[in-house]
């Protein structure tokens, strides 16, 4: 049987929401799936069904050919027998245990030498050296997050489930730990499912992405495909980032980075080093359109292109421009008429360096 995780389930919370999802995650080589959506969309419930903490009314969960849930056959494998690593949104660390005690909590079946070597390995991996004897209340948010991750990976799980792993952190810590988490997931090579509502996390961590809202699955695909080509306006609103382009930083100095995207150079505000693979992300409302031959402006990125399509968004119109890559821009209807925009029309797209967001890639 194919080496994959198959999820196809319905879970109802009477009077509130019905969650219906079906997706598959290839396990070999291990990849990371992002469950993406606003809060209340049912992402965490899907994760809890995968962990065996919640039981769907109908459906199948099969991991590597082994059924975990099959409502038709009455199969219900408890969480203890799924060999999981689960990380709770606010970590759920055991307050009465030390860092080492928390990490070792699930290793009671191992001989003590093996147990301490496993704890040591997890402590090194998550850089928790020197904190082993402290209790969770004595740790910073970032340290607690790393303890929770250490606890989730120490049993060498077959599947890693992370519920909003970075959302409880302040912004600077979140940005730093996002990079660490990306490296960790790559080094561990454990199939993982990450719940998030943060688009940067989705792009930085994900190989696959499932977009959810109100319990429904709106779209699935690679993160880049979902961001660039949302199947409908609802998905576009949820992901909130219209242009996502793979590129490589060719130069970085003084807080500014030059990114090569399909042979075109974009200037972005970023501390990323030269040579890094990144996604360059541009919101449609941050793109300014001007006619050819206009004078000097302050925007650092000026790209010549031609209008490909125009889509009405009510008072606004979304213009897709071909400037070596596909770029989405949003302008008012009046602006469109003033520039006489139409398919085939040449135009200059201006983007401030600060409006080009760089998200490091795997």
């Amino acid at each position, binding site marked *: 049987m194919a080496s994959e995780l198959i999820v196809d389930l319905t879970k109802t919370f009477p009077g509130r929401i019905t969650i219906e999802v079906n997706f598959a995650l290839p396990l070999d080589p291990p990849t990371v799936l992002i469950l993406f959506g606003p809060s209340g969309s049912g992402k965490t419930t899907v994760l809890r069904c995968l*962990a065996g*903490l919640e039981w769907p009314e109908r459906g199948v969960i099969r991991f590597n050919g082994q059924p975990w849930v099959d409502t038709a056959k009455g199969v219900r494998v408890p*969480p*203890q027998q*799924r060999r*999981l690593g689960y990380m709770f949104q606010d970590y*759920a660390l*055991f307050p009465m245990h030390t860092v080492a005690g928390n990490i070792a909590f*699930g290793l009671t079946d191992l001989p003590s030498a093996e147990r301490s070597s496993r704890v040591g390995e997890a402590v090194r991996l998550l850089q928790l050296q020197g904190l082993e004897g402290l209790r969770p209340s004595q740790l910073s948010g970032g340290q607690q997050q790393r303890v929770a991750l250490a*606890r989730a990976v120490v049993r060498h799980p077959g599947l890693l489930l992370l519920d909003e792993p970075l959302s409880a952190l302040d912004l600077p810590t979140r940005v730093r730990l996002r990079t660490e988490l990306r490296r960790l997931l790559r080094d561990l090579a454990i199939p993982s499912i990450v719940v998030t509502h943060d688009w940067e996390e989705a792009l930085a961590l994900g190989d696959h992405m499932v977009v959810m809202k109100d319990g429904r699955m709106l779209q699935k695909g690679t993160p880049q495909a979902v961001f660039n080509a949302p199947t409908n306006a609802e998905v576009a609103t949820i992901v909130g980032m219209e242009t996502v382009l793979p590129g490589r930083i060719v130069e970085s100095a003084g807080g500014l980075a030059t990114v090569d995207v399909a042979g075109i150079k974009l200037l972005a505000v970023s501390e990323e080093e030269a040579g890094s693979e990144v996604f360059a992300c541009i919101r449609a409302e941050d793109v300014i359109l001007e006619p050819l031959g206009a004078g000097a402006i302050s925007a650092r990125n000026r790209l010549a292109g031609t209008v490909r399509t125009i889509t009405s968004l009510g008072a606004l119109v979304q213009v897709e421009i071909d400037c070596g890559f596909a770029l989405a821009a949003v302008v008012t209807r009046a602006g469109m008429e003033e520039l006489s925009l139409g398919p085939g029309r040449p135009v200059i797209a201006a983007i401030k360096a600060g409006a080009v967001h760089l998200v490091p890639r795997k």
Partner: protein
Amino acid sequence: MNWIAIGLTLQLATLTALVLLVIGLPLAYWLSFSRWRWKFAIESVVALPLVLPPTVLGFYILVAIGPHSPVGRFYTTLVGHPLPFTFEGLLFASILYSLPFAVQPFATAFDQVDRRLVEASWTMGLSRLRTFVKLILPLSTTGIVTGIVLSFAHTLGEFGVVLMVGGNIEGETRTVSIDIYDEVQALNYAGAAKTALFLLAVSYTVLLLVYGMNRSVREGRLALLSLQR
């Protein structure tokens, strides 16, 4: 002071508290963790001794364990004598009578345990039993001690149930409270006063212990409050 009655009462209270620890913990776990929709019906049964007049409870227990009931007949064939008006019968009645005083503090303590910690333990491969022993019990110690102490103290002072089920047999079923009643009936106020003072001292000491322990521990006080839930 009637030392035989005091010894018997302490023995009864200790045994009641111990038995309630053994049967109360699993019952409280079930009450706290079950998602069964009719759970409240069982919760109400457990709380019944709090509101039922002891004589009513005693009457039903007497009938239930008496020689005309199947339980009573079974016990008689097993042991050779009937259950009512024996120490064992009294112990059985005390266990039922003090059940809520053990189970409710236990259950409230379990309710206070963050469910995500319990779920985290399950996902880390620990069975429900091991999660209970390694995680839930250590986090519930205050509530468990409160339950044991309260059921002990409550058994010390029972009167109506004892009279109905145990009667008044020296060295077998005559507890301290029955003894005090006897002394007063015999107009021996000095004897009653000494025994009463002893009971007061023991009860106060026990409560000092519980409240002292709960002083800095919030969930313990909640466990006490839970008696009114």
